[in-house]
Protein backbone atom coordinates (compact mmCIF):
# COMPACT_ATOMS: atom_id res chain seq x y z
CA UNK A 1 0.00 0.00 0.00
CA UNK A 2 2.67 2.53 1.00
CA UNK A 3 4.81 2.00 -2.09
CA UNK A 4 1.81 2.39 -4.35
CA UNK A 5 0.67 5.51 -2.54
CA UNK A 6 4.12 7.07 -2.80
CA UNK A 7 4.24 6.30 -6.50
CA UNK A 8 0.84 7.87 -7.07
CA UNK A 9 2.03 11.45 -6.84
CA UNK A 10 -1.06 13.10 -8.22
CA UNK A 11 -3.28 11.42 -5.70
CA UNK A 12 -1.36 12.71 -2.67
CA UNK A 13 -3.51 15.66 -1.67
CA UNK A 14 -6.80 13.86 -2.10
CA UNK A 15 -5.57 10.82 -0.22
CA UNK A 16 -4.26 12.79 2.73
CA UNK A 17 -7.35 14.96 3.00
CA UNK A 18 -9.60 11.91 2.88
CA UNK A 19 -7.62 10.30 5.65
CA UNK A 20 -7.93 13.49 7.69
CA UNK A 21 -11.68 13.58 7.18
CA UNK A 22 -12.02 9.92 8.05
CA UNK A 23 -10.05 10.37 11.23
CA UNK A 24 -12.40 13.14 12.29
CA UNK A 25 -15.42 11.06 11.38
CA UNK A 26 -14.23 8.09 13.42
CA UNK A 27 -13.19 10.12 16.45
CA UNK A 28 -16.55 9.86 18.18
CA UNK A 29 -16.46 6.09 17.71
CA UNK A 30 -12.92 5.28 18.75
CA UNK A 31 -11.65 8.39 20.60
CA UNK A 32 -8.19 7.61 19.28
CA UNK A 33 -7.01 11.15 18.57
CA UNK A 34 -5.79 13.77 21.04
CA UNK A 35 -4.88 16.51 18.55
CA UNK A 36 -5.87 16.77 14.91
CA UNK A 37 -3.26 18.23 12.59
CA UNK A 38 -4.53 20.01 9.48
CA UNK A 39 -2.27 18.70 6.69
CA UNK A 40 -2.48 21.86 4.56
CA UNK A 41 0.99 23.18 5.45
CA UNK A 42 2.70 19.83 5.01
CA UNK A 43 1.02 19.24 1.65
CA UNK A 44 2.50 22.51 0.41
CA UNK A 45 6.03 21.37 1.33
CA UNK A 46 5.99 17.87 -0.12
CA UNK A 47 9.35 16.84 -1.59
CA UNK A 48 9.49 15.77 -5.21
CA UNK A 49 10.50 12.22 -4.26
CA UNK A 50 10.17 10.13 -1.14
CA UNK A 51 9.60 6.58 0.00
CA UNK A 52 6.45 7.77 1.77
CA UNK A 53 5.52 10.74 -0.35
CA UNK A 54 1.94 11.80 0.17
CA UNK A 55 1.28 8.96 2.60
CA UNK A 56 -0.92 10.00 5.53
CA UNK A 57 0.41 8.82 8.88
CA UNK A 58 -0.27 9.32 12.57
CA UNK A 59 2.12 9.99 15.44
CA UNK A 60 1.67 8.73 18.99
CA UNK A 61 1.33 11.80 21.17
CA UNK A 62 4.67 11.23 22.90
CA UNK A 63 6.45 12.28 19.70
CA UNK A 64 7.56 15.93 19.84
CA UNK A 65 6.19 17.98 16.94
CA UNK A 66 7.42 21.54 16.66
CA UNK A 67 4.61 24.02 17.05
CA UNK A 68 2.00 21.31 17.56
CA UNK A 69 0.77 20.39 21.02
CA UNK A 70 2.30 17.19 22.40
CA UNK A 71 0.72 15.77 25.54
CA UNK A 72 1.93 12.19 26.08
CA UNK A 73 -1.63 11.53 27.20
CA UNK A 74 -1.14 13.54 30.39
CA UNK A 75 -3.06 16.57 31.63
CA UNK A 76 0.13 18.23 32.84
CA UNK A 77 1.30 18.47 29.22
CA UNK A 78 -2.07 19.42 27.77
CA UNK A 79 -0.72 22.88 26.96
CA UNK A 80 2.85 21.92 26.02
CA UNK A 81 3.93 23.00 22.54
CA UNK A 82 7.39 21.72 21.59
CA UNK A 83 10.06 24.01 20.13
CA UNK A 84 11.61 21.16 18.19
CA UNK A 85 10.75 18.11 16.10
CA UNK A 86 11.70 14.58 17.09
CA UNK A 87 14.26 13.02 14.77
CA UNK A 88 11.69 10.63 13.30
CA UNK A 89 9.42 13.55 12.44
CA UNK A 90 12.27 15.05 10.42
CA UNK A 91 12.90 11.69 8.76
CA UNK A 92 9.23 11.25 7.91
CA UNK A 93 9.06 14.75 6.48
CA UNK A 94 12.08 14.11 4.26
CA UNK A 95 10.38 10.95 3.00
CA UNK A 96 7.26 12.92 2.17
CA UNK A 97 4.93 11.48 4.79
CA UNK A 98 2.17 13.75 6.12
CA UNK A 99 0.99 13.36 9.72
CA UNK A 100 -2.66 14.12 10.32
CA UNK A 101 -3.05 13.49 14.03
CA UNK A 102 -1.38 12.96 17.42
CA UNK A 103 -2.89 9.78 18.75
CA UNK A 104 -4.23 8.71 22.10
CA UNK A 105 -2.00 6.83 24.50
CA UNK A 106 -1.83 5.67 28.10
CA UNK A 107 -0.65 8.56 30.26
CA UNK A 108 3.12 9.01 29.84
CA UNK A 109 3.14 5.59 28.11
CA UNK A 110 2.77 3.91 31.47
CA UNK A 111 0.03 1.38 30.85
CA UNK A 112 -1.20 -1.51 28.72
CA UNK A 113 -4.86 -0.64 28.23
CA UNK A 114 -5.08 2.86 26.74
CA UNK A 115 -7.65 3.62 29.43
CA UNK A 116 -5.56 6.22 31.27
CA UNK A 117 -5.31 8.95 28.65
CA UNK A 118 -6.51 12.33 29.94
CA UNK A 119 -8.86 12.56 26.95
CA UNK A 120 -10.54 9.30 27.86
CA UNK A 121 -10.23 5.69 26.71
CA UNK A 122 -9.63 4.58 23.15
CA UNK A 123 -12.01 1.95 21.75
CA UNK A 124 -11.14 -1.08 19.68
CA UNK A 125 -12.43 -0.75 16.06
CA UNK A 126 -13.21 -4.47 15.96
CA UNK A 127 -15.49 -4.21 18.98
CA UNK A 128 -15.86 -0.88 20.67
CA UNK A 129 -16.77 -2.53 23.98
CA UNK A 130 -13.17 -3.68 24.10
CA UNK A 131 -9.91 -1.89 24.68
CA UNK A 132 -7.28 -1.33 22.05
CA UNK A 133 -4.54 -2.26 24.47
CA UNK A 134 -1.75 0.20 25.21
CA UNK A 135 0.11 2.28 25.53
CA UNK A 136 0.07 2.97 21.76
CA UNK A 137 -3.66 2.29 21.48
CA UNK A 138 -4.71 5.34 19.48
CA UNK A 139 -2.16 4.64 16.73
CA UNK A 140 -3.24 1.01 16.60
CA UNK A 141 -6.91 1.98 16.21
CA UNK A 142 -6.20 4.44 13.40
CA UNK A 143 -4.34 1.80 11.41
CA UNK A 144 -6.83 -0.97 12.18
CA UNK A 145 -9.74 1.21 11.09
CA UNK A 146 -8.06 1.94 7.79
CA UNK A 147 -7.56 5.66 8.35
CA UNK A 148 -3.80 5.55 7.76
CA UNK A 149 -1.47 2.80 6.54
CA UNK A 150 1.19 3.58 9.15
CA UNK A 151 1.22 5.00 12.65
CA UNK A 152 4.09 5.58 15.06
CA UNK A 153 4.00 4.07 18.54
CA UNK A 154 6.51 3.31 21.26
CA UNK A 155 7.25 0.02 22.98
CA UNK A 156 8.72 -0.20 26.47
CA UNK A 157 7.23 -3.49 27.69
CA UNK A 158 4.99 -4.41 24.77
CA UNK A 159 3.18 -1.16 24.03
CA UNK A 160 3.25 -1.65 20.26
CA UNK A 161 3.21 -5.42 20.06
CA UNK A 162 0.24 -5.98 22.36
CA UNK A 163 -2.16 -3.45 20.80
CA UNK A 164 -1.12 -4.84 17.41
CA UNK A 165 -2.42 -8.20 18.57
CA UNK A 166 -5.67 -6.74 19.89
CA UNK A 167 -6.22 -4.71 16.73
CA UNK A 168 -5.29 -7.26 14.09
CA UNK A 169 -2.37 -5.32 12.60
CA UNK A 170 1.39 -5.54 12.25
CA UNK A 171 3.28 -4.02 15.20
CA UNK A 172 7.05 -3.60 14.99
CA UNK A 173 9.57 -2.99 17.74
CA UNK A 174 12.96 -2.86 15.98
CA UNK A 175 16.32 -3.37 17.68
CA UNK A 176 17.16 -0.87 20.45
CA UNK A 177 19.04 2.01 18.90
CA UNK A 178 17.84 1.21 15.35
CA UNK A 179 15.50 4.21 15.43
CA UNK A 180 16.53 7.42 17.21
CA UNK A 181 14.63 8.20 20.40
CA UNK A 182 15.52 11.91 20.27
CA UNK A 183 12.30 13.82 20.80
CA UNK A 184 10.29 10.87 22.09
CA UNK A 185 9.01 11.69 25.57
CA UNK A 186 10.77 9.16 27.75
CA UNK A 187 9.18 6.50 29.94
CA UNK A 188 12.08 4.14 30.76
CA UNK A 189 15.17 5.04 28.78
CA UNK A 190 16.84 1.63 28.81
CA UNK A 191 13.64 -0.09 27.69
CA UNK A 192 11.99 2.49 25.39
CA UNK A 193 11.90 1.76 21.67
CA UNK A 194 10.27 3.72 18.86
CA UNK A 195 7.90 1.31 17.10
CA UNK A 196 5.15 1.48 14.51
CA UNK A 197 2.04 -0.17 13.07
CA UNK A 198 1.23 -1.14 9.49
CA UNK A 199 -1.15 -3.56 7.80
CA UNK A 200 1.42 -5.50 5.79
CA UNK A 201 4.99 -6.70 6.08
CA UNK A 202 5.96 -4.86 2.91
CA UNK A 203 4.78 -1.61 4.43
CA UNK A 204 6.71 -2.49 7.60
CA UNK A 205 9.88 -2.85 5.52
CA UNK A 206 9.49 0.51 3.80
CA UNK A 207 8.69 2.23 7.09
CA UNK A 208 11.78 0.92 8.84
CA UNK A 209 13.95 2.04 5.93
CA UNK A 210 12.60 5.55 6.42
CA UNK A 211 12.84 5.68 10.22
CA UNK A 212 16.10 3.86 10.93
CA UNK A 213 19.58 5.36 11.15
CA UNK A 214 22.17 6.93 13.40
CA UNK A 215 21.31 10.23 15.12
CA UNK A 216 24.17 11.81 17.08
CA UNK A 217 21.66 13.51 19.34
CA UNK A 218 20.71 10.07 20.71
CA UNK A 219 23.91 8.59 22.07
CA UNK A 220 22.32 5.14 22.27
CA UNK A 221 21.44 5.09 18.56
CA UNK A 222 23.24 2.62 16.34
CA UNK A 223 25.90 3.43 13.74
CA UNK A 224 25.05 0.36 11.71
CA UNK A 225 24.09 0.77 8.09
CA UNK A 226 20.38 0.49 7.32
CA UNK A 227 19.72 -2.38 4.90
CA UNK A 228 17.18 -2.21 2.09
CA UNK A 229 14.61 -4.27 3.99
CA UNK A 230 12.14 -4.30 1.12
CA UNK A 231 14.65 -5.70 -1.35
CA UNK A 232 15.85 -8.35 1.09
CA UNK A 233 12.36 -9.61 2.04
CA UNK A 234 12.25 -13.37 1.49
CA UNK A 235 9.62 -15.63 3.04
CA UNK A 236 11.38 -18.89 2.15
CA UNK A 237 11.45 -20.80 5.42
CA UNK A 238 13.74 -23.63 4.36
CA UNK A 239 16.68 -23.85 6.71
CA UNK A 240 15.01 -21.57 9.25
CA UNK A 241 14.92 -22.78 12.85
CA UNK A 242 12.16 -21.40 15.03
CA UNK A 243 11.76 -21.87 18.78
CA UNK A 244 8.26 -21.92 20.26
CA UNK A 245 8.23 -20.36 23.73
CA UNK A 246 6.90 -23.42 25.58
CA UNK A 247 6.29 -21.62 28.87
CA UNK A 248 3.84 -19.25 27.20
CA UNK A 249 1.84 -21.97 25.47
CA UNK A 250 1.66 -23.99 28.67
CA UNK A 251 0.16 -21.06 30.58
CA UNK A 252 -2.52 -19.97 28.12
CA UNK A 253 -5.85 -21.20 29.44
CA UNK A 254 -7.72 -20.40 26.25
CA UNK A 255 -7.37 -23.63 24.25
CA UNK A 256 -8.79 -22.04 21.12
CA UNK A 257 -5.77 -19.77 20.99
CA UNK A 258 -3.42 -22.65 21.62
CA UNK A 259 -4.96 -24.63 18.78
CA UNK A 260 -4.86 -21.63 16.45
CA UNK A 261 -1.19 -21.18 17.25
CA UNK A 262 -0.27 -24.85 16.87
CA UNK A 263 -2.00 -24.97 13.51
CA UNK A 264 0.09 -22.02 12.43
CA UNK A 265 3.26 -23.80 13.58
CA UNK A 266 2.31 -26.85 11.50
CA UNK A 267 1.87 -24.57 8.51
CA UNK A 268 5.29 -23.07 9.10
CA UNK A 269 6.74 -26.56 9.21
CA UNK A 270 4.98 -27.30 5.95
CA UNK A 271 6.78 -24.29 4.51
CA UNK A 272 10.10 -25.84 5.41
CA UNK A 273 10.87 -24.36 8.82
CA UNK A 274 12.14 -26.43 11.72
CA UNK A 275 9.83 -25.54 14.62
CA UNK A 276 10.67 -26.87 18.09
CA UNK A 277 9.23 -26.21 21.50
CA UNK A 278 11.82 -24.55 23.73
CA UNK A 279 11.38 -24.11 27.45
CA UNK A 280 12.97 -21.44 29.58
CA UNK A 281 13.28 -21.79 33.33
CA UNK A 282 9.76 -21.20 34.70
CA UNK A 283 10.99 -19.10 37.63
CA UNK A 284 12.84 -16.93 35.19
CA UNK A 285 9.73 -16.41 33.07
CA UNK A 286 7.72 -15.44 36.17
CA UNK A 287 10.32 -12.83 37.04
CA UNK A 288 10.03 -10.94 33.72
CA UNK A 289 7.00 -8.81 34.57
CA UNK A 290 8.22 -7.91 38.08
CA UNK A 291 11.68 -7.01 36.74
CA UNK A 292 10.09 -4.92 34.01
CA UNK A 293 7.83 -3.07 36.44
CA UNK A 294 10.65 -2.25 38.77
CA UNK A 295 13.14 -1.08 36.15
CA UNK A 296 10.45 0.85 34.29
CA UNK A 297 8.95 2.54 37.34
CA UNK A 298 12.34 3.48 38.74
CA UNK A 299 13.60 5.03 35.49
CA UNK A 300 10.24 6.70 34.85
CA UNK A 301 10.17 8.43 38.22
CA UNK A 302 13.44 10.06 37.30
CA UNK A 303 12.57 10.79 33.67
CA UNK A 304 9.34 12.57 34.57
CA UNK A 305 10.93 14.81 37.20
CA UNK A 306 11.13 17.58 34.63
CA UNK A 307 7.34 17.83 34.56
CA UNK A 308 6.92 20.51 37.21
CA UNK A 309 4.90 23.30 35.58
CA UNK A 310 7.74 25.81 35.73
CA UNK A 311 9.04 26.03 32.18
CA UNK A 312 6.19 24.40 30.24
CA UNK A 313 2.99 22.50 30.81
CA UNK A 314 0.06 23.31 33.04
CA UNK A 315 1.14 25.38 36.04
CA UNK A 316 -1.11 25.48 39.08
CA UNK A 317 -0.90 28.34 41.58
CA UNK A 318 1.16 28.26 44.73
CA UNK A 319 2.95 30.53 47.17
CA UNK A 320 6.39 29.29 46.38
CA UNK A 321 8.25 26.92 44.11
CA UNK A 322 7.47 23.84 46.18
CA UNK A 323 3.75 24.55 46.23
CA UNK A 324 3.63 25.27 42.51
CA UNK A 325 5.45 22.05 41.68
CA UNK A 326 3.35 20.00 44.08
CA UNK A 327 0.02 21.42 42.95
CA UNK A 328 0.93 21.14 39.29
CA UNK A 329 2.08 17.55 39.59
CA UNK A 330 -0.84 16.50 41.78
CA UNK A 331 -3.46 17.93 39.44
CA UNK A 332 -1.53 17.15 36.27
CA UNK A 333 -0.72 13.47 36.85
CA UNK A 334 -3.39 10.77 37.00
CA UNK A 335 -3.63 8.58 40.12
CA UNK A 336 -2.13 5.50 38.49
CA UNK A 337 1.13 7.12 37.51
CA UNK A 338 1.47 8.95 40.80
CA UNK A 339 1.30 5.60 42.54
CA UNK A 340 3.80 4.12 40.08
CA UNK A 341 6.21 7.02 40.72
CA UNK A 342 6.10 6.38 44.46
CA UNK A 343 6.93 2.73 43.92
CA UNK A 344 9.69 3.68 41.49
CA UNK A 345 11.15 6.16 43.93
CA UNK A 346 11.03 3.59 46.72
CA UNK A 347 13.05 1.20 44.60
CA UNK A 348 15.76 3.81 44.06
CA UNK A 349 16.35 4.74 47.70
CA UNK A 350 19.92 4.04 48.62
CA UNK A 351 18.91 1.45 51.23
CA UNK A 352 16.60 -0.32 48.77
CA UNK A 353 18.41 -0.03 45.48
CA UNK A 354 20.53 -3.15 45.81
CA UNK A 355 17.58 -5.27 46.82
CA UNK A 356 15.07 -3.85 44.34
CA UNK A 357 16.37 -1.86 41.35
CA UNK A 358 19.72 -3.55 40.93
CA UNK A 359 18.26 -6.96 41.59
CA UNK A 360 15.80 -6.37 38.78
CA UNK A 361 18.67 -5.29 36.53
CA UNK A 362 20.50 -8.49 37.35
CA UNK A 363 17.45 -10.58 36.56
CA UNK A 364 17.30 -8.68 33.28
CA UNK A 365 20.76 -9.96 32.41
CA UNK A 366 19.84 -13.53 33.35
CA UNK A 367 16.80 -13.30 31.05
CA UNK A 368 18.86 -11.97 28.18
CA UNK A 369 21.52 -14.65 28.70
CA UNK A 370 18.80 -17.27 28.48
CA UNK A 371 17.51 -15.69 25.25
CA UNK A 372 21.02 -15.72 23.86
CA UNK A 373 21.35 -19.41 24.62
CA UNK A 374 18.15 -20.04 22.71
CA UNK A 375 19.07 -17.77 19.81
CA UNK A 376 22.41 -19.51 19.41
CA UNK A 377 20.51 -22.49 18.06
CA UNK A 378 17.39 -20.81 16.67
CA UNK A 379 16.76 -17.88 14.33
CA UNK A 380 13.56 -16.76 16.00
CA UNK A 381 11.46 -17.14 19.14
CA UNK A 382 7.71 -17.33 18.55
CA UNK A 383 4.58 -17.35 20.72
CA UNK A 384 1.08 -15.89 20.73
CA UNK A 385 1.22 -12.14 21.46
CA UNK A 386 -1.68 -12.63 23.86
CA UNK A 387 -3.71 -15.60 25.08
CA UNK A 388 -7.01 -13.86 24.42
CA UNK A 389 -8.62 -11.21 22.33
CA UNK A 390 -8.81 -7.64 23.64
CA UNK A 391 -10.43 -7.57 27.10
CA UNK A 392 -13.75 -5.82 27.64
CA UNK A 393 -13.19 -2.37 29.03
CA UNK A 394 -15.60 -2.88 31.88
CA UNK A 395 -14.26 -6.28 32.88
CA UNK A 396 -11.97 -4.61 35.41
CA UNK A 397 -9.26 -7.23 35.24
CA UNK A 398 -6.30 -6.90 37.53
CA UNK A 399 -3.43 -6.17 35.21
CA UNK A 400 -0.85 -6.75 37.90
CA UNK A 401 -2.07 -10.16 39.06
CA UNK A 402 0.67 -12.57 40.01
CA UNK A 403 -0.92 -15.56 38.29
CA UNK A 404 1.30 -17.53 35.96
CA UNK A 405 -1.04 -16.78 33.11
CA UNK A 406 -0.74 -13.07 33.63
CA UNK A 407 2.96 -13.15 34.38
CA UNK A 408 4.08 -15.50 31.67
CA UNK A 409 1.48 -15.72 28.95
CA UNK A 410 0.41 -12.08 28.92
CA UNK A 411 3.57 -10.21 29.82
CA UNK A 412 6.54 -12.11 28.45
CA UNK A 413 7.12 -9.71 25.57
CA UNK A 414 9.16 -7.42 27.85
CA UNK A 415 11.97 -9.87 27.02
CA UNK A 416 12.27 -7.97 23.77
CA UNK A 417 12.84 -4.74 25.70
CA UNK A 418 15.30 -6.26 28.15
CA UNK A 419 17.41 -7.58 25.30
CA UNK A 420 16.72 -4.83 22.79
CA UNK A 421 16.18 -7.54 20.16
CA UNK A 422 13.80 -6.85 17.25
CA UNK A 423 10.29 -8.17 17.75
CA UNK A 424 7.14 -8.09 15.64
CA UNK A 425 3.47 -8.96 16.13
CA UNK A 426 1.52 -10.21 13.13
CA UNK A 427 -2.21 -11.12 12.93
CA UNK A 428 -2.76 -14.83 13.58
CA UNK A 429 -6.50 -15.45 13.73
CA UNK A 430 -9.90 -14.50 15.11
CA UNK A 431 -12.02 -15.37 18.11
CA UNK A 432 -15.48 -13.92 18.64
CA UNK A 433 -14.84 -11.73 15.61
CA UNK A 434 -11.82 -10.12 17.22
CA UNK A 435 -8.19 -10.60 16.24
CA UNK A 436 -5.26 -12.21 18.04
CA UNK A 437 -1.66 -11.89 16.96
CA UNK A 438 1.53 -13.93 17.07
CA UNK A 439 4.86 -12.49 18.21
CA UNK A 440 8.27 -13.19 16.68
CA UNK A 441 11.62 -12.10 18.18
CA UNK A 442 15.03 -12.41 16.49
CA UNK A 443 18.67 -11.57 17.16
CA UNK A 444 19.95 -7.99 17.41
CA UNK A 445 19.81 -6.06 14.13
CA UNK A 446 18.39 -9.08 12.29
CA UNK A 447 15.18 -7.29 11.29
CA UNK A 448 15.51 -8.98 7.92
CA UNK A 449 15.05 -12.41 9.50
CA UNK A 450 12.17 -11.06 11.58
CA UNK A 451 10.44 -9.68 8.48
CA UNK A 452 11.03 -12.93 6.59
CA UNK A 453 9.33 -15.08 9.22
CA UNK A 454 6.54 -12.51 9.59
CA UNK A 455 6.02 -12.55 5.83
CA UNK A 456 5.77 -16.32 5.87
CA UNK A 457 3.07 -16.07 8.51
CA UNK A 458 1.31 -13.38 6.50
CA UNK A 459 1.29 -15.65 3.47
CA UNK A 460 -0.09 -18.55 5.49
CA UNK A 461 -2.89 -16.58 7.12
CA UNK A 462 -3.64 -14.32 4.18
CA UNK A 463 -4.14 -11.47 6.69
CA UNK A 464 -2.78 -8.63 4.64
CA UNK A 465 -4.38 -5.19 4.78
CA UNK A 466 -6.87 -6.39 7.41
CA UNK A 467 -9.20 -3.56 8.29
CA UNK A 468 -11.91 -3.50 10.90
CA UNK A 469 -15.29 -2.84 9.39
CA UNK A 470 -16.49 0.48 10.75
CA UNK A 471 -20.23 0.69 11.14
Amino acid at each position, binding site marked *: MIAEMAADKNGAEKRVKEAYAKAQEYQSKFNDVITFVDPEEQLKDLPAEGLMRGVPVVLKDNVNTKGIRTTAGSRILSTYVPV*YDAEIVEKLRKAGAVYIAKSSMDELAMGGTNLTCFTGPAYNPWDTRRMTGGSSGGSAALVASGVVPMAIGSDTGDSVRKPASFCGIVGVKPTYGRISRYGIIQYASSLDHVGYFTRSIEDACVTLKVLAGRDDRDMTSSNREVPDYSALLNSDMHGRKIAVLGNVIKNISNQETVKMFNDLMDQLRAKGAQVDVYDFDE*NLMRAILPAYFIIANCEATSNDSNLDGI*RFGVREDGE*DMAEIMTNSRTKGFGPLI*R*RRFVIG*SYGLFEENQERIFR*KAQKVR*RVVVNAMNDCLKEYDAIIAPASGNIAPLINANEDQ*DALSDENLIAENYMAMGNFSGYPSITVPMGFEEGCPIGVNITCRAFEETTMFDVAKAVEEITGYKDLQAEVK
Partner: protein
Amino acid sequence: MEEKKDREYFKKLAHQLMFDLSDEEADSLVREFGTLEGQMALLDAVNTDGVEEMIYPFEAETAFVRKDEVSNVITQDEAMANVDKKIEGHFVLPKVVK
Protein backbone atom coordinates in the same frame (compact mmCIF):
# COMPACT_ATOMS: atom_id res chain seq x y z
CA MET B 1 14.71 0.95 61.85
CA GLU B 2 11.95 -0.08 59.44
CA GLU B 3 9.21 2.51 58.98
CA LYS B 4 5.67 1.24 58.93
CA LYS B 5 4.43 1.23 55.32
CA ASP B 6 1.09 2.80 56.03
CA ARG B 7 -0.99 5.57 54.53
CA GLU B 8 1.08 8.31 56.19
CA TYR B 9 4.32 6.79 54.97
CA PHE B 10 3.24 6.84 51.33
CA LYS B 11 1.82 10.32 51.60
CA LYS B 12 5.20 11.46 52.86
CA LEU B 13 7.01 9.68 50.05
CA ALA B 14 4.72 11.25 47.50
CA HIS B 15 5.28 14.69 48.96
CA GLN B 16 9.02 14.22 48.54
CA LEU B 17 8.29 13.62 44.86
CA MET B 18 6.47 16.96 44.70
CA PHE B 19 2.90 15.69 44.49
CA ASP B 20 0.19 14.62 46.88
CA LEU B 21 -1.96 11.53 47.28
CA SER B 22 -5.48 11.50 48.62
CA ASP B 23 -6.34 9.13 51.45
CA GLU B 24 -7.85 6.67 48.98
CA GLU B 25 -4.88 6.85 46.68
CA ALA B 26 -2.48 6.27 49.57
CA ASP B 27 -4.55 3.30 50.73
CA SER B 28 -4.45 1.90 47.22
CA LEU B 29 -0.71 2.23 47.33
CA VAL B 30 -0.53 0.30 50.59
CA ARG B 31 -2.20 -2.57 48.74
CA GLU B 32 0.05 -2.21 45.70
CA PHE B 33 3.02 -2.30 47.99
CA GLY B 34 1.88 -5.74 49.01
CA THR B 35 2.00 -6.69 45.35
CA LEU B 36 5.52 -5.28 45.15
CA GLU B 37 6.56 -7.60 47.95
CA GLY B 38 5.12 -10.48 45.95
CA GLN B 39 7.02 -9.32 42.89
CA MET B 40 10.23 -9.15 44.90
CA ALA B 41 9.72 -12.78 45.91
CA LEU B 42 9.51 -13.73 42.25
CA LEU B 43 12.73 -11.86 41.56
CA ASP B 44 14.47 -13.47 44.50
CA ALA B 45 13.61 -16.90 43.09
CA VAL B 46 16.09 -16.19 40.31
CA ASN B 47 19.72 -16.86 41.21
CA THR B 48 21.78 -13.75 40.42
CA ASP B 49 24.99 -14.66 42.26
CA GLY B 50 27.95 -13.22 40.43
CA VAL B 51 25.67 -11.53 37.89
CA GLU B 52 26.30 -7.88 37.08
CA GLU B 53 23.43 -5.44 36.62
CA MET B 54 22.35 -4.88 33.04
CA ILE B 55 22.09 -1.12 32.67
CA TYR B 56 21.87 -0.88 28.87
CA PRO B 57 20.51 -3.41 26.36
CA PHE B 58 23.78 -3.14 24.44
CA GLU B 59 26.94 -2.63 26.39
CA ALA B 60 29.32 -1.86 23.56
CA GLU B 61 31.28 1.20 24.63
CA THR B 62 31.11 4.20 22.38
CA ALA B 63 33.94 6.39 21.18
CA PHE B 64 31.63 9.19 20.10
CA VAL B 65 31.76 12.57 21.81
CA ARG B 66 30.23 15.76 20.42
CA LYS B 67 32.45 18.45 18.86
CA ASP B 68 32.46 21.66 20.89
CA GLU B 69 30.64 23.81 18.33
CA VAL B 70 27.37 25.69 18.73
CA SER B 71 24.82 23.53 16.93
CA ASN B 72 21.46 24.27 18.51
CA VAL B 73 20.17 27.47 20.13
CA ILE B 74 16.58 28.60 20.36
CA THR B 75 15.44 32.20 20.65
CA GLN B 76 14.35 33.77 23.89
CA ASP B 77 10.79 33.84 22.57
CA GLU B 78 10.89 30.13 21.85
CA ALA B 79 12.34 29.44 25.30
CA MET B 80 9.50 31.41 26.91
CA ALA B 81 6.76 30.26 24.54
CA ASN B 82 5.36 27.73 26.99
CA VAL B 83 4.83 30.08 29.95
CA ASP B 84 2.46 32.99 30.56
CA LYS B 85 4.45 35.02 33.07
CA LYS B 86 7.78 36.47 32.11
CA ILE B 87 9.79 39.40 33.41
CA GLU B 88 12.47 40.72 31.06
CA GLY B 89 13.00 37.37 29.49
CA HIS B 90 13.10 35.46 32.79
CA PHE B 91 10.86 32.69 34.07
CA VAL B 92 8.95 33.90 37.14
CA LEU B 93 8.33 32.19 40.44
CA PRO B 94 6.85 33.51 43.64
CA LYS B 95 9.61 34.28 46.13
CA VAL B 96 11.72 31.29 47.07
CA VAL B 97 12.93 31.21 50.65
CA LYS B 98 15.95 28.93 50.83
